[in-house]
């Protein structure tokens, strides 16, 4: 409300300044009129018309009555696609419906759940009820509803070691492809900061292929839970589209962290740029086939801990493939003890509570990459991480 009033005052002042400035310019220094009285009157008429028109139109926009659609016969508020047909945000409906996010049809009214065509809030963003994208998202995604809780650890006072904090930063670690350092980006949030919408498509359009997610929560009992997490094929700033979630997706923003594509030396990862179409991805990577097993099969990283270790010696399936980013960067969990690198019986995937918030859960918390209790959004810390793949007996 305060922001709305402030904006109205700013607009009114701006109009007055413009009008006064225009009148002053029409006078010579000696006070004589620069133009004829008729022309001056005409200019006054135009100024008045603009000012009155602006003021008359502004309240109409602020207080448009949807009870009288005939007042705007060219727009059908219930038919968003009459205007937005073909835009990537609206057209993509191939995925399973996720709340109001996707599968828009002639009989649905999901658009209206978040946008208001008329009489929208003066401090709302994109005709949404919230002043920012994040604020709008958190109408539902505040821990009490929706999925993909953001900020749950922090809100509960728990230690947050790393996170993708929204509406705070314009910096992308490793975003500078030339140096591997920090890059400044023009993101979609308030004042160019990172926002939910930079990674997620709230309309379900232009999203990556669904993958097996760890986001169990209430789907713990639902077999084969797949989701695209509404992840964009082209996160903000990406210069290309990524259809499959994996290293390529991370590198769209953190391009300085990719390997083999420039002079920087980074830990190798499988990307389409370095390996081509056979590059491993989150959904298709070598995973061990059981507890304490040295054998691997092709599978998903999701819903098991078997993809977070690499047996030594490497298996034929692993070949010369490097890991994908998510094999080191995911929800914190305990996998692969230092001595063997294999998965122990005590380290199997266990989620007993919503959001993995129970201390005995493995992984604990399901908030990656929103926030993590582990530094740098890693699954483990120190040598415990490295030894998952680089076992001491293989080292020189």
């Amino acid at each position: 409300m305060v922001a709305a009033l402030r904006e109205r005052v700013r607009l009114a002042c701006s109009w007055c300044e413009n009008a006064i400035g225009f009148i002053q310019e029409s006078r010579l220094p000696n006070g004589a009129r620069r133009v004829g009285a008729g022309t001056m009157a005409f200019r006054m008429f135009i100024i008045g018309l603009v000012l009155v028109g602006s003021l008359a139109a502004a309240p109409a926009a602020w207080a448009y009555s949807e009870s009288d659609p005939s007042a705007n016969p060219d727009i059908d508020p219930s038919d968003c696609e009459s205007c937005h047909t073909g835009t990537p945000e609206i057209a993509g409906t191939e995925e399973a419906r996720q709340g109001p996010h996707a599968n828009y049809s002639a009989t649905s009214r999901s658009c209206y759940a978040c946008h208001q065509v008329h009489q929208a809030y003066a401090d709302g963003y994109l005709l949404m009820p919230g002043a920012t994208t994040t604020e709008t998202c958190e109408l539902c995604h505040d821990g009490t509803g929706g999925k993909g809780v953001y900020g749950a650890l922090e809100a509960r006072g728990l230690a947050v070691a790393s996170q993708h904090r929204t509406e705070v930063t314009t910096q992308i670690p490793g975003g500078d492809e030339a140096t591997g350092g920090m890059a400044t980006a023009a993101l979609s949030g308030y004042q160019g900061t990172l926002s939910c919408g930079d990674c997620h498509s709230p309309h379900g359009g232009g999203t990556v292929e669904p993958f097996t997610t760890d986001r169990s929560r209430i789907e713990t009992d639902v077999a084969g839970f797949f989701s695209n997490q509404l992840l964009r094929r082209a996160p903000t700033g990406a210069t290309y589209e990524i259809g499959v979630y994996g290293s390529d997706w991370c590198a769209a923003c953190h391009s300085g962290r990719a390997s083999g594509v420039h002079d920087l030396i980074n830990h190798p990862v499988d990307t389409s740029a370095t390996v081509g179409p056979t590059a491993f991805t989150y959904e298709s990577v070598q995973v061990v086939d059981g507890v304490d097993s040295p054998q691997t099969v092709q599978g998903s990283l999701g819903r098991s801990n078997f993809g977070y270790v690499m047996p030594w010696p490497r298996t034929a399936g692993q070949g010369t493939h490097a890991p994908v980013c998510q094999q080191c960067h995911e929800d914190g969990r305990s996998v692969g003890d230092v001595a063997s690198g294999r998965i122990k019986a005590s380290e199997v995937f266990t989620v007993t509570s919503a959001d993995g918030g129970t201390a005995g859960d493995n992984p604990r918390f399901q908030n990656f990459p929103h926030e993590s209790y582990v530094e740098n959004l890693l699954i483990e810390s120190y040598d415990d991480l490295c030894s998952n793949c680089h076992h001491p007996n293989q080292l020189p």
Partner: protein
Amino acid sequence: MTPDAAVTPVNSRMRIRRSMQILSAVLLVVLLVLLVLLFRELLTGAPEYPVSQEGIRPLHVILGPGVGNRPFFDGPMGVTFGADGRIYVADSGNHRVVVFDSEGEYLFQFGGLGVGKPAAGIEPSWKPGLFNYPTDICSDDVGNIYVADFRNDQIQVFDADGDFLRVFPDRNEPLGRGASGQDGAGIAVTSLTVHGERVYATDTYQVAVFSTEGELLDQFGRPGAEPGDLDHPNGIAVGAPSVVVVSNSNRNQVLAFAPGGRFMWSFGKPLGNDLAGLSGELELPRGLTIMDDGTVLVADALADSIVRLTLAGEFDGRFGTRGAAPGQFNAPMDVDEADNRLAIAEKGNDRVQVIVIED
């Protein structure tokens, strides 16, 4: 050239100039009137909205206490009438409870942020009477107030004047056969209600039943997608004869259970891959209440309206449209009823309204 012919163009220009001057004067007068109206609106802070919404008669719009360093609500998610008609608001974003009289006049507030389960090695900042994101509030027959202290995994009880009485369950101990509290202890309570001597509370996937003193009496519900399964319930009410009605928010349903948790009926279409989109039946049911005649009122947050159901689970009306005018709603999260007056907490409009449904 006749004299008339010489004069006519001059007269014409004079007429045009005079017309322009008159028009300019008129426009300036209109402009001044509009500016006066605009500044009057800015100064009074009371925009003139339409006051009549179909089927709804707005009585009060409450934006916050209007005093102190937080004069406005921040995303209120719960509201209840006290035994004496007072209006108690769970001001979630401000971690407090704000109390008004039956006419919406501010009385007092209590609470503030207190973290009950911080990281290891950090002292809890919670003390009795502090909250961490209170999501719901209700009162019992004698006027005691029960607050869903969501992120502290507990329920706090106060007398009508906001004096702390008790807290339950133990936020650091497992609850019965398990609940969604942090570290598997306590209950991340999203909504609650008192019926007789029992307190009914929801967490992420179940219903827990306590005595008003805090003893765990029963638990039912399970996560999943089967009929009767729960997925982020955010509203609960109990009607005669002890029918427990629950908003199953993430699946767009209202469910009813018999005593002991036997599933009875559901209203609304659950989310699923076979649906074309939001059906319009229920879009995000949150808080609900049951009237004396058995009618169920549900705050449908994404549809910005109040849905009325019979106690048999049949649709009986929808009231309200999206907007910021009195009688309109933006993300209504909770509804309570007393003497046919409804109090509605709107997270999107950062306000509470008191209305009457007339139909």
